């Protein structure tokens, strides 16, 4: 019965799903941790709300990168309209292309969440040093961006392949 299934599209969709799931889960964990710390700081000093909110948002970008890759994949493979005919090899390629942002997104968002928590602690004591705390957290994000880049380039590259 499996012979009638077009496995290409299945794997391609699996890739898109993984990109948004794993990066999203990572961001959710990171933002959640940062949120706990932020709430602690705001109980002491409500006027720091806007500062800690910005710090809390920082680990959220990986989820967006995951969404971005998922969306580009969905539109490339024709799920969002158009023909959805993908060869088996291409489907696997899409899956592979989605993996960098899925895995790096998951782990870097969690690590960035930890850096953001420390940054929030720093804001509690020295609010004027906020931009440095932001930079520390942004350092982690570099690797998510590099992974995103590889995913993007790979997905656009696959579209042009003739297999």
């Amino acid at each position, binding site marked *: 019965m499996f012979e009638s299934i077009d496995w290409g599209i299945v794997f391609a969709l699996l890739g898109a799903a993984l990109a948004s799931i794993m990066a999203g889960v990572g961001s959710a964990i990171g933002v959640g941790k940062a949120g706990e710390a932020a709430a602690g700081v705001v109980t002491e000093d409500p006027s720091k709300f806007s500062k800690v909110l910005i710090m809390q948002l920082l680990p959220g970008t990986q989820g967006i*990168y995951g969404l971005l890759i998922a*969306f580009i994949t969905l539109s490339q493979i024709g799920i969002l309209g158009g023909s959805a005919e993908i060869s088996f090899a291409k489907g696997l390629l899409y899956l592979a292309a989605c993996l960098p942002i899925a895995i790096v997104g998951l782990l870097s968002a969690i690590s960035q969440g930890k850096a953001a928590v420390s940054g929030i602690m720093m804001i509690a004591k020295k609010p004027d040093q*906020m*931009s440095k705390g932001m930079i520390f957290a942004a350092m982690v*994000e*570099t690797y998510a961006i590099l992974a995103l*880049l590889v995913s*993007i380039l790979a997905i656009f590259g696959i579209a042009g392949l003739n297999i």
Partner: protein
Amino acid sequence: MKVPMSRITIYGGKKDRKAVLEFLQRQQCVDICEPDAENEDLGFSNMNTSDFQSEFMREKTVGEKALAALDRYAPEEKGLLSSFAGRRALSAEEYYSYVDDIPEMMNIAERLCEAEEEIGEKRGRIVRRRSELDELSPWMKLDVSLSETGTKNSSCIIGMFPEELTEAQLTERYYSADAAPPVYIEIVNTLPRQTCVFALCSRTDAAACEGRLRELGFSRMKTSYDGVPSERAEQIKQEIAALEREISALEREIISYKGARSSLKFMVDYYAMRTEKYGVLSKLSQRNRVFVITGFVPSAEAAPLTAALEHKYNAAVEIEDAGEDAPVLLKNRYLTEPVEGIVKTFAMPSRGEIDPTSIMAFFYYILFGMMLSDAAYGLIMFLGCFIALKKFKNMEPDMKKSLRMFMYCGISTMFWGVMFGSYFGDIVPTVSRTFFNHEVTIPPLWFEPVKDPMKMLMFSFVIGIIHLFTGLGVKLYQCVKAKDWVAAFGDCIFWYMLIGGGILYLFRVDMFLSMAGLSSKLPAVWGTVAAVIAGIGALGILLFTAPKNKMGKRLAKGAYSLYGVTSWLSDILSYSRLLALGLATGVIATVFNKMGSMFGSGIVGAVIFAVVFLIGHTLNLGINALGAYVHTNRLQFVEFFGKFFEGGGKEFHPFAAHTKYYKFKEEI
């Protein structure tokens, strides 16, 4: 640009001390430093003002607490945008009338703090009364006092069992032992896991009876009060009601002082100012009838300040060269001034370093714009900042600078949005296709990054290389200015040759050409030239990084420095975030547009589209503007500043009135 500084020494008579200090505090242009140690040998001494300072601090704290109490019960009505409004300037007249109010305000502030404390204390008492009430609640049906012990011949025992029991069960268990004396047991109340019991027995049997009850798990009710529980409960309820009435009276009293808010604010500012003034007073060298102030002043303001001090206040002023430990004040103009704040959050330039603000500003706007790169978002940012700047003329300078920075970033974002053809992502084709059945597109002025990401990646790297080379250029300038020729060659020129030659050589490499989508290959002679340049660079770095060391160490240090080429590679790759963040904005905007347009072209479709559009794009703009800000800062701090800027200068911090609520400009 760093403002040139001069060292100023002011000598004056003690009778003019107050006037001189107040004059300096108003002028806000002198950074007063600790006195010279040699003054002490000349018989000068410092005044110890810490007692005064702590007294002023205390008064300021009372005022702040009073304001906090007022804010809790009578919150100030503030507009949503009130944080832009800035401090109000006070006229001399207002100032003096407020000063006259201060003794009265001090009383009010103390009364407010007292009332606040009383409320807290009364709330605590209510809580304690409530828990007492909870304790009593199972005993409501008992119609004797809880501490009742019995009559002449009878003894009563009041207490509870830690389980749910009926009268029959209890009686049966009680008499199951042989020696149990006769007893009358009445159940007052049963709760899950608790049975409240009233037991009566003959006075002679009291001890034996209680002993038997204890064997069954009984414990006596311990109370600190006398009386029938229901009566006591009524009494407690009345006490709580009375306390609540007292609290609301106190709250009303606090609210009745809300007219004093502005005077209280003034009081806080007044004591902040006095604390600052007395802090400076302790830095003055004084002897008999004279005092000496030393500090730093921007050279341009030295002359007018000297004139004013000499004519108005009979002081003698000495202006000298600032020397090496002068504090740093940045001054820039027009487009470059707004990013001063970004430099300050990194570090102030130290001696021998130039102020990087003006060079950085140019790149700051470009990088920010490329990361956000949407014409509509840029327009929103520009208009938002522009309107806020126009509307709130009295805005604080730092806030003004930030808003101006984002305004210029908005313009740059618009520019790149038009270049890359992004207006709310793809709103124009989406709307025209969904609602008008006729697709209209606005073609990009240059190219669409989504369609040609490789081109965008290459462009990002080009921007990155220009940015990094500019940073290296600043380093070269600083080396030349300091006449440090070894560093100029070893750290700058040879690097230019190595990296520049290496990049040129790439244009001979087929793999790179196909990746970059270039068809024309440079002639072979170019490759040779590039390789030779890069080779000379590498050799230079190897030999001239540490030329003063012995040969072995010199080469080792050179080789280590040469290893730094990997950091150049990662620095350049870091600019790929320009592509990633730029794409993120556009693609997420597209996602929202698509979501909105899924519901067709009817009225319902249009309404849903509008809602999705508003929420989605607000979210996208917020998150991506934050991302652009953070990552532009990162590129400036890590990649750009890493090439030449260390910082470590001390910020110029003039003696002024650092107040929270009011500004004092006039002569007062």
